[in-house]
């Protein structure tokens, strides 16, 4: 469904993505893991067309994306830190997003708006919202247009446990509809019952890319967090950097 071919990106002298190639298919739920600054967000932004890669190509459903921007209609994106025009109210923002998607026959999915209670504060300006509420708006927007692909950058960061749970339920629901879901998160425990595949990035490369079953089998751990920790430890001893510890 999404294929990355030899994507490289430098910011100045710093190589953020180093010839990354991979494929993501429908029905997968991929956890994109890795330490801060490893290139996760850049990779997501590359897929979204927000960052233009120096070389390589991205193929979405068989079409190269730099030729055609329409593929973004099929992507719902929830940024790590949602930044919105300050003077707009939530309802304006939603209206604008609807306007951008020209297809009016599609009934927008407003489930999250209701379950997050956003419809009660719909006339508040974005400027006045708390970080958590802004995240709720981001989440609602990402799911609104029934996208085939959902890209969620740290979705639960800043959300309260209840909202977090509601979001997780929503993600599972969408996953069951056969959508491709790409999540980055630091909180591995929440990914347990979601993820089908793990991608671990470091220094702009994919360190490994494995279905969760394989991973659990290899490590003999049931919990994702432990499995990751195990695998990291074995690798780190290989690289003789034992001082780094994972939570």
């Amino acid at each position, binding site marked *: 469904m999404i294929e990355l071919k030899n994507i490289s990106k430098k910011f100045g002298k710093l190589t953020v993505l180093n010839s990354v190639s991979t494929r993501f298919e429908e029905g997968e739920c991929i956890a994109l893991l890795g330490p801060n600054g490893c290139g996760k967000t850049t990779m997501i932004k590359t897929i979204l067309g927000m960052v233009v890669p120096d070389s390589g190509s991205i193929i979405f459903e068989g079409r190269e994306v730099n030729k055609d921007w329409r593929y973004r209609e099929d992507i719902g994106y929830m940024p790590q830190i949602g930044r*919105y025009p300050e003077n707009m109210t939530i309802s304006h923002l939603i209206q604008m997003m609807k306007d*951008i998607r020209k297809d009016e026959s599609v009934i927008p999915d407003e489930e999250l708006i209701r379950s997050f209670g956003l419809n009660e504060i719909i006339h508040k300006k974005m400027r006045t919202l708390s970080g958590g509420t802004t995240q709720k708006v981001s989440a609602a927007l990402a799911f609104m247009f029934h996208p085939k692909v959902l890209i969620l950058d740290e979705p639960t960061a800043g959300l309260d446990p209840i909202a977090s749970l509601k979001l997780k339920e929503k993600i599972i629901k969408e996953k069951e509809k056969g959508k491709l879901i790409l999540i980055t998160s630091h909180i591995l425990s929440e990914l347990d019952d979601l993820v089908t595949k793990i991608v671990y990035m470091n220094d702009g490369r994919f360190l490994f890319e494995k279905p969760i079953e394989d991973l659990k089998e290899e490590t003999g751990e049931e919990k994702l967090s432990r499995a990751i920790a195990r695998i990291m430890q074995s690798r780190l001893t290989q690289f003789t950097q034992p001082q780094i510890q994972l939570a």
Partner: protein
Amino acid sequence: MKKILKYVIADIIQNKIVIIYTLLLLTISFSVFSLESSAAKGMASLLNLVLLIVPLICIIFSTIYIYNSAEFIELLVSQPLKRKTLWLSLFGGLASSLSIAFLIGVGVPVLIYHADLTGLVLVLSGLFLTIVFVSIALWAAGMTRDKAKGIGWAIALWLFFALIFDAIVLFLLFQFQDYPLENAMVVMSFLNPIDLSRIQILLQMDISALMGYTGAVFQEFFGSLNGIVISFAGLILWIFIPLFFSLRRFAKKDL
């Protein structure tokens, strides 16, 4: 395009600076016409407004607006939109709202006090300068991610076109005093939208003969219909060239 434009304009109008700008222009225009002894003298004072204040405000406001719209741009870039559409919407929103401000602030008083060809050329030139400096601002805003630096660049560019360019022209005039420079001066004037507008307006004012007095080439070139058409074509180029470069840069920008 239209949809985004709508949101940009709504946003700019909510931003009260454009309204203050309109009122400022209105106040200056009306006071200039009522304080000066004749409408012609009022026009001469308006000339300075059009050639100095309008470009300054347009370039600074547009630059700041672009920096302040970083979130908006970031949000929309991840949406199913062409970057070109987004950037042109920003340009269109800025250009149209500042143009409307100018038309109300200067166009209306001129219509009341001096509705003739001179007035028309003054308003038209001001309108072009508004759009040209929005275009230049979009280009300047792409030069750096740092807002303070970007505004610095904008002011520097304004200073260049309003003052430094003419100082260079004056310098060249003295350096090459012994050569026939009229044709070169015509070419030079095309390198600066403010000069181009100024000469157009002056030729419509009574001063035309004075210019013809010593620089027949000016009078012949800028005074003829062809010259007027070519001058405005020059101003149109001044809109599209910076816009084109800013568009090219924005197409590759990482957000």
